[in-house]
C-alpha cells in the first residue's frame, strides 16, 4: 500500500519538476508527455517488433546459458579433479567484462542478433555456472553415503536436489544480467531491438520517445525479476527456504 504511495510520489515529482522548470523539460519531459509518447509508440508496428526482438534475444540467450551452465557445472562439480583443475581458469575468465567481446562479435558476426546473443550467453553463463558449482559442492555427506549405499543415480537424487536452490538463484541473477546485455548489445552493436530504438530516438532528438522506451525496458526488467522469483518458488516448493515463509 505504502509502496503505491511511493510510486505515486515518484510519478508526481517526475510530472511537476519539469513543469515548474526545476528540471529543463528538454532534458527530462514531464511524465504525462512520456506516457503520451508511449501511447503513440504502442500503435506502431516497429515498437512491438523491437519488444519481440529484445525478448527473443533475452530468452534465447538465457536458455542457452542456463542449459550450458547446468551441464558444465554438474560435470565439473561432480569430478573433484576437474574441479581443482578448472578453478583457476574459471576465476580468470569470469571477470572478463562481456562488453570486451563486442568488437570481436561485430567483426566476426556483423550487426546481427548472433553478436548480441554471444554477449548475453557469455555474461549469464558464468552466473549459472558459479551457482551450480557451489550447489554441487554443498552435497550433504550423509545423503552422499545414503545414495551410494542404495546405488541411487547420483545426478538425479543427489546433485540435482542439492543444487536446485543454487540453480534457481543463478537463473534469477542470469535473467537480469541477460536483459542488461541484450539491450546493451542492441544499443552498441545496432542489432534490432529496444536498445537500437533508443539509439535511434536519441539521434533524432525524440526525447519523450527515448524516455518512453527506457520506461518500457525498466518494466520488462521488473517483470523478469518477478517472473524469476515466481518460478523459483514453484520449483522449490519442497525446499525449507521456501516452506518456512508459509505461515503455520
Amino acid at each position, binding site marked *: 500500500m*505504502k*509502496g*503505491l*504511495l*511511493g*510510486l505515486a*510520489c*515518484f510519478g508526481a515529482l517526475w510530472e511537476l519538476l519539469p513543469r515548474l522548470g526545476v528540471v*529543463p523539460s*528538454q*532534458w*527530462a519531459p514531464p511524465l504525462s508527455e512520456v506516457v503520451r509518447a508511449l501511447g503513440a509508440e504502442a500503435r506502431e508496428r516497429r515498437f512491438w517488433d523491437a519488444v519481440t526482438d529484445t525478448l527473443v534475444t533475452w530468452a534465447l540467450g538465457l536458455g542457452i546459458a542456463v542449459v550450458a551452465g547446468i551441464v558444465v557445472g554438474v560435470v565439473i562439480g561432480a569430478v573433484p579433479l576437474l574441479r*581443482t*583443475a*578448472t*578453478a*583457476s*581458469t574459471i576465476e*580468470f575468465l*569470469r*571477470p*572478463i*567484462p*562481456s*562488453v*570486451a*567481446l*563486442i*568488437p*570481436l562479435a*561485430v*567483426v*566476426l558476426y556483423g550487426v546481427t542478433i548472433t553478436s548480441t546473443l554471444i554477449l548475453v550467453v557469455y555474461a549469464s553463463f558464468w552466473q549459472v555456472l558459479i551457482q551450480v558449482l557451489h550447489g554441487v559442492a554443498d552435497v550433504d555427506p550423509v545423503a552422499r553415503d545414503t545414495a551410494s549405499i542404495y546405488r541411487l543415480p547420483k545426478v538425479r537424487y543427489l546433485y540435482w536436489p542439492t543444487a536446485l536452490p543454487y540453480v534457481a538463484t543463478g537463473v534469477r541473477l542470469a535473467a*537480469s544480467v541477460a*536483459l*542488461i546485455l541484450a*539491450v*546493451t548489445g542492441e*544499443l*552498441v552493436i545496432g542489432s534490432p531491438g*529496444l*536498445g537500437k530504438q*533508443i*539509439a535511434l*530516438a*536519441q539521434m533524432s532528438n525524440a*526525447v519523450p520517445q*527515448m*524516455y518512453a*522506451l*527506457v520506461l518500457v*525496458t*525498466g*518494466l*520488462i*526488467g*521488473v517483470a*523478469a*525479476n518477478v517472473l524469476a522469483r515466481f518460478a523459483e518458488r514453484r520449483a522449490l516448493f519442497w525446499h525449507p527456504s521456501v516452506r518456512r515463509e508459509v505461515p503455520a
Partner: protein
Amino acid sequence: MSATLKRVGIWLGLPVALVTVWWFASAGSTDFFRPSLQRIVQAFRETWLGPRFVEEVLPSLARLAVGYVLAVILGVVIGVAIGLSVRTRALTEPVLEFLRAIPPPILVPVIMLFAGIENTMKVIVIVFGCIWPILLNTVEGVRATDEVLTDTCQVYGVKPLRHLVLQSASPQIMTGARQALAIGIILMVISEMVAANNGLGFTIVQFQRGFQIPEMWSGVLLLGLIGVALAGLFHLAERRVLVWYHGSRDADRR
C-alpha cells in the same frame, strides 16, 4: 614443498595448456579476422605499452574510480538511511526495484542529454549503474541487524551506527560492491563506445572500425586483464575489510 608444487601445477596447468593450444593452433593463421596469438601479443606490446597507456587507459580507469567511489559512498549513506526506517523502506521499495531494473547502459543516451559526452557524463553513468546493488544490499544488511545487539547498544549507550549497523551490514555491502564493480567496468567501456573522444572503449572501437584487427584483439585482451586485475584487487580489499567475518565463519565451520 611438493604439495605446494602440486597445487601450483594444478592452478596453472589448464590455463597454460589453453594458451599453448591457442598459440600453436593460431600460428601462421592467414584468416584476416582471427590473427595468430603471436601477432596479437606483438600488437599488444606496440599498442598499449607506451604513451597510449597514459592517454587512453588511465583516463578510463580514473573515471571508473571516481564513479565507483561516489556510488559506494552514496549507496551506503542512502541505503543506511532507508534501511533504518521501516516507513521509508515501504515507501521507496517499488521505486527502487523499478530503477534497479532499468539496464544501466541504456541510460547513456539519456544522461548524454544533459551532461554532454565529456567526463561528467561517464561518471554519472557509472554512478547511476553502480549504486543499485550497493544501495539495495545495504538496505537488506541494515534491516537484518541483530535485534539483541541493537538493544545492547542502546542499554550501554554505544553509538550504534558505526559500531553496529555498518559493521553488521558490511558483508552484504561488500557483496553489493562486488556486483557494482563488474557493472562499473561494463559502463566504463560502454559509455566510451557510444560517445567519447578518448578512452579504452573508444580506442578499441576505432581499431574495429579501421579494421586494425590484431590491435583490436589486443584491446580485448587488455580489457580482460583489467577485469581480472580489478576483481583480484577487490578480493584483497574484501579480505581486509571482512577479516572478522571470514574468521568467525571459519570458526563456525570447525
